[in-house]
Protein backbone atom coordinates (compact mmCIF):
# COMPACT_ATOMS: atom_id res chain seq x y z
CA UNK A 1 0.00 0.00 0.00
CA UNK A 2 1.50 3.31 -1.07
CA UNK A 3 1.17 6.78 0.37
CA UNK A 4 -0.42 8.01 -2.86
CA UNK A 5 -2.64 5.11 -3.90
CA UNK A 6 -5.18 6.10 -6.56
CA UNK A 7 -4.05 9.71 -6.70
CA UNK A 8 -3.65 11.26 -10.12
CA UNK A 9 -0.74 13.70 -10.11
CA UNK A 10 0.51 15.98 -12.85
CA UNK A 11 4.23 16.75 -12.81
CA UNK A 12 5.19 19.52 -15.19
CA UNK A 13 8.71 19.17 -16.45
CA UNK A 14 8.35 15.58 -15.32
CA UNK A 15 10.50 13.93 -17.97
CA UNK A 16 13.92 14.70 -16.57
CA UNK A 17 15.87 15.79 -13.53
CA UNK A 18 13.93 16.69 -10.40
CA UNK A 19 10.55 16.25 -12.13
CA UNK A 20 11.51 12.75 -13.16
CA UNK A 21 12.54 11.88 -9.60
CA UNK A 22 9.12 13.08 -8.39
CA UNK A 23 7.32 11.11 -11.09
CA UNK A 24 9.16 7.87 -10.34
CA UNK A 25 8.59 8.12 -6.58
CA UNK A 26 4.94 9.09 -6.90
CA UNK A 27 4.38 6.03 -9.09
CA UNK A 28 6.18 3.83 -6.55
CA UNK A 29 3.80 5.19 -3.92
CA UNK A 30 0.82 4.12 -6.00
CA UNK A 31 -0.04 7.33 -7.84
CA UNK A 32 -1.02 7.56 -11.50
CA UNK A 33 1.40 10.07 -12.92
CA UNK A 34 1.06 12.54 -15.74
CA UNK A 35 4.40 13.54 -17.24
CA UNK A 36 3.63 16.97 -18.68
CA UNK A 37 6.77 18.08 -20.43
CA UNK A 38 7.63 20.28 -23.36
CA UNK A 39 9.94 17.48 -24.53
CA UNK A 40 7.37 14.93 -25.74
CA UNK A 41 9.76 12.06 -26.55
CA UNK A 42 11.51 12.41 -23.17
CA UNK A 43 8.10 12.42 -21.47
CA UNK A 44 7.15 9.22 -23.33
CA UNK A 45 10.42 7.61 -22.27
CA UNK A 46 9.90 8.39 -18.57
CA UNK A 47 6.27 7.23 -18.74
CA UNK A 48 7.39 4.00 -20.36
CA UNK A 49 10.02 3.44 -17.67
CA UNK A 50 7.38 3.87 -14.99
CA UNK A 51 5.17 1.38 -16.84
CA UNK A 52 8.01 -1.15 -17.04
CA UNK A 53 8.54 -0.80 -13.31
CA UNK A 54 4.89 -1.70 -12.75
CA UNK A 55 3.55 1.82 -12.29
CA UNK A 56 1.02 3.86 -14.21
CA UNK A 57 1.97 6.96 -16.16
CA UNK A 58 1.05 8.88 -19.28
CA UNK A 59 2.98 11.49 -21.21
CA UNK A 60 1.21 14.70 -22.16
CA UNK A 61 3.42 17.06 -24.16
CA UNK A 62 2.80 20.48 -22.61
CA UNK A 63 4.15 23.99 -22.94
CA UNK A 64 3.28 25.47 -19.54
CA UNK A 65 3.64 29.02 -20.84
CA UNK A 66 0.85 28.42 -23.35
CA UNK A 67 -2.73 28.82 -22.10
CA UNK A 68 -4.32 26.40 -24.55
CA UNK A 69 -1.63 23.82 -23.95
CA UNK A 70 -2.27 23.82 -20.17
CA UNK A 71 -6.04 23.58 -20.71
CA UNK A 72 -5.49 20.65 -23.06
CA UNK A 73 -3.22 19.04 -20.46
CA UNK A 74 -5.93 19.13 -17.76
CA UNK A 75 -8.52 17.93 -20.26
CA UNK A 76 -6.36 14.98 -21.37
CA UNK A 77 -5.87 13.90 -17.75
CA UNK A 78 -9.58 14.10 -16.96
CA UNK A 79 -10.41 12.09 -20.08
CA UNK A 80 -7.87 9.44 -19.15
CA UNK A 81 -8.45 9.11 -15.41
CA UNK A 82 -11.42 11.30 -14.55
CA UNK A 83 -9.70 13.16 -11.72
CA UNK A 84 -6.75 15.31 -10.75
CA UNK A 85 -5.53 15.08 -7.16
CA UNK A 86 -2.22 16.80 -7.44
CA UNK A 87 -0.17 19.21 -9.50
CA UNK A 88 3.57 19.78 -9.17
CA UNK A 89 4.59 22.97 -10.93
CA UNK A 90 8.13 21.93 -11.61
CA UNK A 91 8.68 22.98 -15.23
CA UNK A 92 11.07 25.92 -15.36
CA UNK A 93 13.97 27.29 -17.26
CA UNK A 94 17.08 27.37 -15.11
CA UNK A 95 19.99 26.08 -17.11
CA UNK A 96 22.25 27.67 -19.62
CA UNK A 97 21.78 28.60 -22.42
CA UNK A 98 18.23 29.69 -21.52
CA UNK A 99 19.49 31.48 -18.44
CA UNK A 100 22.29 34.00 -18.60
CA UNK A 101 24.38 33.90 -15.43
CA UNK A 102 25.13 37.55 -15.24
CA UNK A 103 24.29 40.93 -13.81
CA UNK A 104 21.08 42.85 -14.46
CA UNK A 105 22.71 44.78 -17.30
CA UNK A 106 23.68 41.54 -19.03
CA UNK A 107 20.16 40.09 -19.04
CA UNK A 108 18.08 41.15 -21.99
CA UNK A 109 14.44 42.14 -21.65
CA UNK A 110 13.57 39.28 -24.02
CA UNK A 111 15.25 36.75 -21.74
CA UNK A 112 13.48 38.24 -18.73
CA UNK A 113 10.12 37.77 -20.44
CA UNK A 114 10.91 34.20 -21.50
CA UNK A 115 11.95 33.20 -17.97
CA UNK A 116 8.84 34.78 -16.43
CA UNK A 117 6.63 33.15 -19.08
CA UNK A 118 7.75 29.66 -18.12
CA UNK A 119 8.64 30.01 -14.42
CA UNK A 120 5.78 32.26 -13.27
CA UNK A 121 3.08 32.34 -15.95
CA UNK A 122 3.52 28.55 -16.26
CA UNK A 123 2.52 27.71 -12.66
CA UNK A 124 -0.25 30.33 -12.88
CA UNK A 125 -1.72 28.75 -16.01
CA UNK A 126 -1.37 25.18 -14.77
CA UNK A 127 -3.12 26.08 -11.48
CA UNK A 128 -5.82 27.82 -13.45
CA UNK A 129 -6.30 24.72 -15.57
CA UNK A 130 -6.70 22.27 -12.67
CA UNK A 131 -8.50 24.44 -10.10
CA UNK A 132 -12.07 24.18 -11.46
CA UNK A 133 -11.87 20.40 -11.17
CA UNK A 134 -10.17 20.44 -7.75
CA UNK A 135 -12.72 22.93 -6.42
CA UNK A 136 -15.61 20.86 -7.71
CA UNK A 137 -14.18 17.80 -5.96
CA UNK A 138 -13.32 19.68 -2.78
CA UNK A 139 -9.78 18.39 -2.59
CA UNK A 140 -6.41 19.03 -4.17
CA UNK A 141 -2.68 19.26 -3.55
CA UNK A 142 -0.52 21.78 -5.38
CA UNK A 143 3.25 22.05 -5.01
CA UNK A 144 5.17 24.86 -6.63
CA UNK A 145 8.90 24.42 -7.02
CA UNK A 146 10.71 27.54 -5.89
CA UNK A 147 14.43 27.70 -5.23
CA UNK A 148 16.89 28.14 -2.41
CA UNK A 149 18.28 31.05 -4.41
CA UNK A 150 15.22 33.06 -3.36
CA UNK A 151 16.56 32.88 0.19
CA UNK A 152 20.27 33.24 -0.58
CA UNK A 153 20.01 35.65 -3.51
CA UNK A 154 22.82 33.67 -5.14
CA UNK A 155 21.93 33.47 -8.80
CA UNK A 156 20.95 35.92 -11.47
CA UNK A 157 18.03 38.29 -11.05
CA UNK A 158 15.65 36.95 -13.69
CA UNK A 159 15.76 33.45 -12.21
CA UNK A 160 15.63 34.47 -8.53
CA UNK A 161 12.81 36.96 -9.16
CA UNK A 162 10.79 34.25 -10.89
CA UNK A 163 11.29 31.88 -7.96
CA UNK A 164 10.32 34.59 -5.47
CA UNK A 165 7.14 35.09 -7.46
CA UNK A 166 6.41 31.39 -7.02
CA UNK A 167 6.53 31.80 -3.23
CA UNK A 168 4.19 34.79 -3.45
CA UNK A 169 1.77 32.85 -5.63
CA UNK A 170 1.88 29.93 -3.21
CA UNK A 171 0.90 32.16 -0.28
CA UNK A 172 -1.95 33.97 -1.97
CA UNK A 173 -3.40 30.92 -3.68
CA UNK A 174 -3.31 28.95 -0.41
CA UNK A 175 -5.65 31.49 1.16
CA UNK A 176 -7.92 31.58 -1.87
CA UNK A 177 -8.51 27.84 -2.11
CA UNK A 178 -8.33 26.66 1.51
CA UNK A 179 -12.11 26.54 1.70
CA UNK A 180 -12.01 23.84 -0.98
CA UNK A 181 -9.51 21.72 0.96
CA UNK A 182 -6.88 22.45 -1.60
CA UNK A 183 -3.41 22.87 -0.12
CA UNK A 184 -0.76 24.91 -1.89
CA UNK A 185 2.84 24.63 -0.75
CA UNK A 186 6.25 25.21 -2.17
CA UNK A 187 9.53 23.30 -2.14
CA UNK A 188 12.76 25.24 -2.46
CA UNK A 189 15.60 22.95 -3.54
CA UNK A 190 19.24 23.85 -3.31
CA UNK A 191 21.57 23.52 -6.27
CA UNK A 192 20.74 20.00 -7.45
CA UNK A 193 22.74 17.70 -9.70
CA UNK A 194 19.89 17.30 -12.16
CA UNK A 195 21.60 17.93 -15.50
CA UNK A 196 22.63 14.59 -17.03
CA UNK A 197 25.20 16.46 -19.13
CA UNK A 198 27.13 17.66 -16.08
CA UNK A 199 28.65 15.33 -13.51
CA UNK A 200 28.51 15.89 -9.75
CA UNK A 201 31.86 17.66 -9.62
CA UNK A 202 30.06 20.65 -11.14
CA UNK A 203 27.81 20.89 -8.09
CA UNK A 204 30.43 21.02 -5.32
CA UNK A 205 30.31 24.81 -4.97
CA UNK A 206 27.37 24.90 -2.55
CA UNK A 207 28.47 21.97 -0.38
CA UNK A 208 30.46 24.00 2.21
CA UNK A 209 27.34 26.12 2.98
CA UNK A 210 25.27 23.08 3.91
CA UNK A 211 24.68 21.41 7.25
CA UNK A 212 24.74 18.08 5.42
CA UNK A 213 27.88 18.35 3.35
CA UNK A 214 27.29 16.58 0.10
CA UNK A 215 25.93 17.18 -3.40
CA UNK A 216 22.13 17.41 -3.64
CA UNK A 217 20.50 14.90 -5.97
CA UNK A 218 16.98 14.86 -7.45
CA UNK A 219 16.06 11.90 -5.23
CA UNK A 220 16.69 14.07 -2.15
CA UNK A 221 13.53 16.01 -3.02
CA UNK A 222 11.21 13.08 -3.62
CA UNK A 223 10.31 12.52 0.03
CA UNK A 224 9.13 16.10 0.48
CA UNK A 225 7.13 15.75 -2.73
CA UNK A 226 5.41 12.60 -1.50
CA UNK A 227 4.65 14.25 1.85
CA UNK A 228 3.09 17.30 0.23
CA UNK A 229 1.07 15.18 -2.23
CA UNK A 230 -0.21 12.87 0.52
CA UNK A 231 -2.94 13.31 3.09
CA UNK A 232 -0.19 13.61 5.72
CA UNK A 233 0.07 17.32 4.86
CA UNK A 234 -3.65 18.13 4.67
CA UNK A 235 -3.50 20.83 7.38
CA UNK A 236 -0.39 22.46 5.99
CA UNK A 237 -0.77 25.14 3.37
CA UNK A 238 0.91 28.33 2.18
CA UNK A 239 4.32 27.10 3.32
CA UNK A 240 7.70 26.92 1.65
CA UNK A 241 9.90 24.01 2.59
CA UNK A 242 13.59 24.35 1.86
CA UNK A 243 15.19 21.03 0.95
CA UNK A 244 18.85 21.85 0.52
CA UNK A 245 20.79 20.01 3.20
CA UNK A 246 20.43 22.93 5.58
CA UNK A 247 22.06 25.82 3.70
CA UNK A 248 19.31 28.44 3.78
CA UNK A 249 17.44 28.24 7.10
CA UNK A 250 13.77 29.22 7.01
Amino acid at each position, binding site marked *: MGKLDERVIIVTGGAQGIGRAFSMRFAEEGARVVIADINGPAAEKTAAEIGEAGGEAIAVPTDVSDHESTEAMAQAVLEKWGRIDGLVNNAAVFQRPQITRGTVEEITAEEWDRVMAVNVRGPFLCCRAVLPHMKARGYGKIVNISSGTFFSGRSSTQYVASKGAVVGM*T*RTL*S*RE*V*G*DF*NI*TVNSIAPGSTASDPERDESNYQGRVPD*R*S*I*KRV*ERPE*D*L*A*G*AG*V*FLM*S*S*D*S*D*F*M*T*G*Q*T*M*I*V*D*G*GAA*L*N
Partner: protein
Amino acid sequence: MGRLDDRVIIVTGGAAGIGRAFADGFVREGASVVLADINGEQAERSAEEIRQAGGQALGLTVDVSDQAQTETMVAETLSRFGKVTGLVNNAAIAIRVRHTRAPLEEIPLDEFDRMLAVNLKGVFLCSRAVLPHMKEQGYGKIINMSSGTFFNGRENLVHYVASKGGVIAFTRVLAREAGPSGIRVNSIAPGLTASETEEHSLEEFAVRIPNRAIKRIEVPEDLVGAGIFFMSAESDFISGQTLAVDGGVVVH
Protein backbone atom coordinates in the same frame (compact mmCIF):
# COMPACT_ATOMS: atom_id res chain seq x y z
CA MET B 1 6.26 -2.13 6.49
CA GLY B 2 6.29 1.25 8.17
CA ARG B 3 8.32 4.30 7.43
CA LEU B 4 9.81 4.28 10.93
CA ASP B 5 10.61 0.59 11.26
CA ASP B 6 13.43 -0.08 13.75
CA ARG B 7 13.59 3.54 14.83
CA VAL B 8 13.59 4.46 18.51
CA ILE B 9 12.07 7.84 19.23
CA ILE B 10 11.87 9.80 22.47
CA VAL B 11 8.89 12.14 22.72
CA THR B 12 9.09 14.57 25.59
CA GLY B 13 5.69 15.62 26.89
CA GLY B 14 4.58 12.38 25.25
CA ALA B 15 1.96 11.32 27.76
CA ALA B 16 -0.93 13.31 26.29
CA GLY B 17 -1.97 15.90 23.75
CA ILE B 18 0.24 16.56 20.73
CA GLY B 19 3.07 14.43 22.13
CA ARG B 20 0.81 11.43 22.55
CA ALA B 21 -0.55 11.88 19.02
CA PHE B 22 3.03 11.85 17.71
CA ALA B 23 3.82 8.71 19.71
CA ASP B 24 0.77 6.90 18.34
CA GLY B 25 1.66 7.92 14.78
CA PHE B 26 5.28 6.83 15.19
CA VAL B 27 4.20 3.44 16.56
CA ARG B 28 1.81 2.95 13.62
CA GLU B 29 4.82 3.44 11.33
CA GLY B 30 6.85 0.82 13.16
CA ALA B 31 8.87 2.85 15.69
CA SER B 32 9.47 2.11 19.35
CA VAL B 33 8.67 5.13 21.47
CA VAL B 34 9.71 6.54 24.81
CA LEU B 35 7.10 8.76 26.43
CA ALA B 36 9.06 11.11 28.66
CA ASP B 37 6.75 13.27 30.70
CA ILE B 38 6.76 15.18 33.93
CA ASN B 39 3.56 13.31 34.66
CA GLY B 40 5.15 9.89 34.90
CA GLU B 41 1.95 8.08 35.83
CA GLN B 42 0.19 9.32 32.75
CA ALA B 43 3.25 8.50 30.63
CA GLU B 44 3.23 4.95 31.92
CA ARG B 45 -0.53 4.65 31.34
CA SER B 46 -0.12 5.84 27.75
CA ALA B 47 2.84 3.49 27.22
CA GLU B 48 0.77 0.62 28.56
CA GLU B 49 -2.05 1.44 26.13
CA ILE B 50 0.43 1.38 23.26
CA ARG B 51 1.87 -1.94 24.42
CA GLN B 52 -1.63 -3.40 24.78
CA ALA B 53 -2.23 -2.47 21.15
CA GLY B 54 0.92 -4.36 20.14
CA GLY B 55 3.41 -1.46 20.04
CA GLN B 56 6.73 -0.94 21.79
CA ALA B 57 6.65 1.84 24.36
CA LEU B 58 8.35 2.92 27.55
CA GLY B 59 6.95 5.54 29.92
CA LEU B 60 9.37 7.66 31.94
CA THR B 61 9.06 10.45 34.49
CA VAL B 62 11.21 13.31 33.21
CA ASP B 63 11.47 16.99 34.06
CA VAL B 64 13.22 18.26 30.93
CA SER B 65 14.58 21.27 32.81
CA ASP B 66 16.65 18.97 35.04
CA GLN B 67 19.92 17.86 33.48
CA ALA B 68 20.31 14.68 35.52
CA GLN B 69 16.81 13.55 34.58
CA THR B 70 17.40 14.11 30.86
CA GLU B 71 20.56 12.01 31.06
CA THR B 72 18.71 9.26 32.88
CA MET B 73 16.04 9.44 30.16
CA VAL B 74 18.60 8.66 27.48
CA ALA B 75 20.34 5.99 29.58
CA GLU B 76 17.02 4.21 30.18
CA THR B 77 16.13 4.43 26.50
CA LEU B 78 19.47 2.88 25.54
CA SER B 79 19.13 0.20 28.15
CA ARG B 80 15.61 -0.73 26.99
CA PHE B 81 15.91 -0.29 23.19
CA GLY B 82 19.68 -0.12 22.53
CA LYS B 83 19.63 3.10 20.53
CA VAL B 84 18.03 6.49 20.00
CA THR B 85 17.13 7.44 16.44
CA GLY B 86 14.91 10.40 17.12
CA LEU B 87 14.01 13.01 19.69
CA VAL B 88 10.91 15.20 19.66
CA ASN B 89 11.35 18.13 22.00
CA ASN B 90 7.68 18.63 22.62
CA ALA B 91 7.47 19.12 26.41
CA ALA B 92 6.58 22.71 27.16
CA ILE B 93 4.58 24.97 29.35
CA ALA B 94 1.80 25.55 26.83
CA ILE B 95 -1.94 25.23 26.55
CA ARG B 96 -2.15 22.24 28.88
CA VAL B 97 -0.17 23.87 31.71
CA ARG B 98 -1.54 26.85 33.60
CA HIS B 99 0.36 30.06 32.90
CA THR B 100 -0.21 33.81 33.07
CA ARG B 101 -1.63 35.58 30.04
CA ALA B 102 -0.90 39.23 30.59
CA PRO B 103 1.13 42.18 29.34
CA LEU B 104 4.88 41.95 29.83
CA GLU B 105 5.03 43.97 33.04
CA GLU B 106 2.50 41.69 34.70
CA ILE B 107 4.33 38.44 33.96
CA PRO B 108 5.77 37.21 37.25
CA LEU B 109 9.55 36.88 37.07
CA ASP B 110 9.61 33.37 38.42
CA GLU B 111 7.12 32.35 35.78
CA PHE B 112 9.27 33.86 33.04
CA ASP B 113 12.23 31.88 34.35
CA ARG B 114 10.27 28.66 34.56
CA MET B 115 8.88 29.13 31.03
CA LEU B 116 12.37 29.52 29.61
CA ALA B 117 13.70 26.68 31.75
CA VAL B 118 11.19 24.18 30.42
CA ASN B 119 10.53 25.43 26.88
CA LEU B 120 14.07 26.37 25.88
CA LYS B 121 16.59 24.98 28.33
CA GLY B 122 14.61 21.73 28.20
CA VAL B 123 15.26 21.52 24.45
CA PHE B 124 18.93 22.26 25.06
CA LEU B 125 19.27 19.64 27.79
CA CYS B 126 17.43 16.85 25.98
CA SER B 127 19.40 17.50 22.78
CA ARG B 128 22.62 17.55 24.79
CA ALA B 129 21.71 14.22 26.33
CA VAL B 130 21.04 12.41 23.02
CA LEU B 131 23.81 13.96 20.92
CA PRO B 132 26.78 11.81 22.05
CA HIS B 133 24.91 8.64 21.10
CA MET B 134 23.53 10.07 17.84
CA LYS B 135 26.97 11.32 16.84
CA GLU B 136 28.45 7.93 17.52
CA GLN B 137 25.87 6.22 15.35
CA GLY B 138 26.28 8.91 12.68
CA TYR B 139 22.56 9.50 12.34
CA GLY B 140 19.78 11.19 14.21
CA LYS B 141 16.56 13.14 13.77
CA ILE B 142 15.52 15.91 16.13
CA ILE B 143 12.26 17.86 16.00
CA ASN B 144 11.84 20.92 18.17
CA MET B 145 8.30 22.12 18.69
CA SER B 146 8.01 25.85 18.20
CA SER B 147 4.76 27.76 17.76
CA GLY B 148 2.87 29.86 15.26
CA THR B 149 2.81 32.56 17.96
CA PHE B 150 6.47 33.26 17.15
CA PHE B 151 5.46 34.40 13.68
CA ASN B 152 2.47 36.50 14.62
CA GLY B 153 3.74 37.83 17.95
CA ARG B 154 0.70 36.81 19.94
CA GLU B 155 0.16 39.41 22.68
CA ASN B 156 0.04 38.76 26.42
CA LEU B 157 2.32 35.76 26.07
CA VAL B 158 5.77 37.30 25.89
CA HIS B 159 7.37 34.59 28.01
CA TYR B 160 5.93 31.79 25.88
CA VAL B 161 6.57 33.43 22.52
CA ALA B 162 10.14 34.34 23.45
CA SER B 163 10.79 30.74 24.43
CA LYS B 164 9.41 29.49 21.11
CA GLY B 165 11.49 31.96 19.14
CA GLY B 166 14.51 30.68 21.00
CA VAL B 167 13.60 27.18 19.86
CA ILE B 168 13.83 28.22 16.19
CA ALA B 169 17.20 29.88 16.70
CA PHE B 170 18.39 26.77 18.53
CA THR B 171 17.16 24.58 15.65
CA ARG B 172 19.18 26.54 13.10
CA VAL B 173 22.44 26.49 15.04
CA LEU B 174 22.23 22.83 15.99
CA ALA B 175 21.39 21.91 12.39
CA ARG B 176 24.71 23.36 11.27
CA GLU B 177 26.67 21.97 14.20
CA ALA B 178 25.34 18.44 14.03
CA GLY B 179 24.80 18.12 10.25
CA PRO B 180 28.30 16.78 9.58
CA SER B 181 27.54 13.99 12.08
CA GLY B 182 24.43 12.97 10.11
CA ILE B 183 21.98 14.55 12.53
CA ARG B 184 19.01 16.51 11.14
CA VAL B 185 17.32 19.16 13.26
CA ASN B 186 14.03 20.73 12.25
CA SER B 187 11.15 22.51 13.89
CA ILE B 188 7.37 22.34 13.62
CA ALA B 189 5.27 25.40 14.45
CA PRO B 190 1.68 24.38 15.18
CA GLY B 191 -1.22 26.75 15.34
CA LEU B 192 -3.53 26.85 18.34
CA THR B 193 -4.28 23.16 18.74
CA ALA B 194 -7.18 21.61 20.59
CA SER B 195 -5.19 19.32 22.88
CA GLU B 196 -7.36 17.62 25.44
CA THR B 197 -7.62 19.82 28.50
CA GLU B 198 -9.90 20.33 31.42
CA GLU B 199 -9.62 24.10 31.43
CA HIS B 200 -10.42 24.95 27.85
CA SER B 201 -13.59 24.46 25.89
CA LEU B 202 -13.57 23.65 22.20
CA GLU B 203 -15.00 27.10 21.50
CA GLU B 204 -11.80 28.71 22.73
CA PHE B 205 -9.91 26.94 19.98
CA ALA B 206 -12.25 28.32 17.36
CA VAL B 207 -10.91 31.89 17.72
CA ARG B 208 -8.13 31.34 15.19
CA ILE B 209 -10.32 29.83 12.50
CA PRO B 210 -11.05 33.05 10.56
CA ASN B 211 -7.29 33.60 10.06
CA ARG B 212 -6.78 30.20 8.48
CA ALA B 213 -6.83 29.16 4.86
CA ILE B 214 -8.40 25.88 6.01
CA LYS B 215 -11.19 27.01 8.29
CA ARG B 216 -11.51 24.51 11.10
CA ILE B 217 -10.10 23.74 14.55
CA GLU B 218 -6.60 22.26 14.58
CA VAL B 219 -6.32 18.94 16.36
CA PRO B 220 -3.18 17.04 17.44
CA GLU B 221 -3.58 14.52 14.61
CA ASP B 222 -3.07 17.35 12.11
CA LEU B 223 0.58 17.48 13.18
CA VAL B 224 1.35 13.78 13.01
CA GLY B 225 2.10 13.62 9.27
CA ALA B 226 4.76 16.31 9.58
CA GLY B 227 6.21 14.53 12.61
CA ILE B 228 6.48 11.22 10.76
CA PHE B 229 8.00 13.00 7.78
CA PHE B 230 10.72 14.65 9.86
CA MET B 231 11.43 11.40 11.76
CA SER B 232 11.68 9.31 8.57
CA ALA B 233 14.41 8.93 5.96
CA GLU B 234 12.14 10.88 3.59
CA SER B 235 13.44 14.15 5.06
CA ASP B 236 17.13 13.22 5.24
CA PHE B 237 18.25 16.19 3.14
CA ILE B 238 16.22 18.70 5.14
CA SER B 239 17.73 20.40 8.17
CA GLY B 240 17.45 23.67 10.02
CA GLN B 241 13.92 24.34 8.77
CA THR B 242 10.74 25.39 10.53
CA LEU B 243 7.49 24.09 9.16
CA ALA B 244 4.30 25.91 10.09
CA VAL B 245 1.46 23.39 10.32
CA ASP B 246 -1.51 25.55 11.19
CA GLY B 247 -4.00 25.38 8.35
CA GLY B 248 -2.32 28.32 6.67
CA VAL B 249 -2.38 31.17 9.18
CA VAL B 250 1.28 31.95 9.04
CA VAL B 251 2.72 31.73 5.54
CA HIS B 252 6.35 30.89 6.07
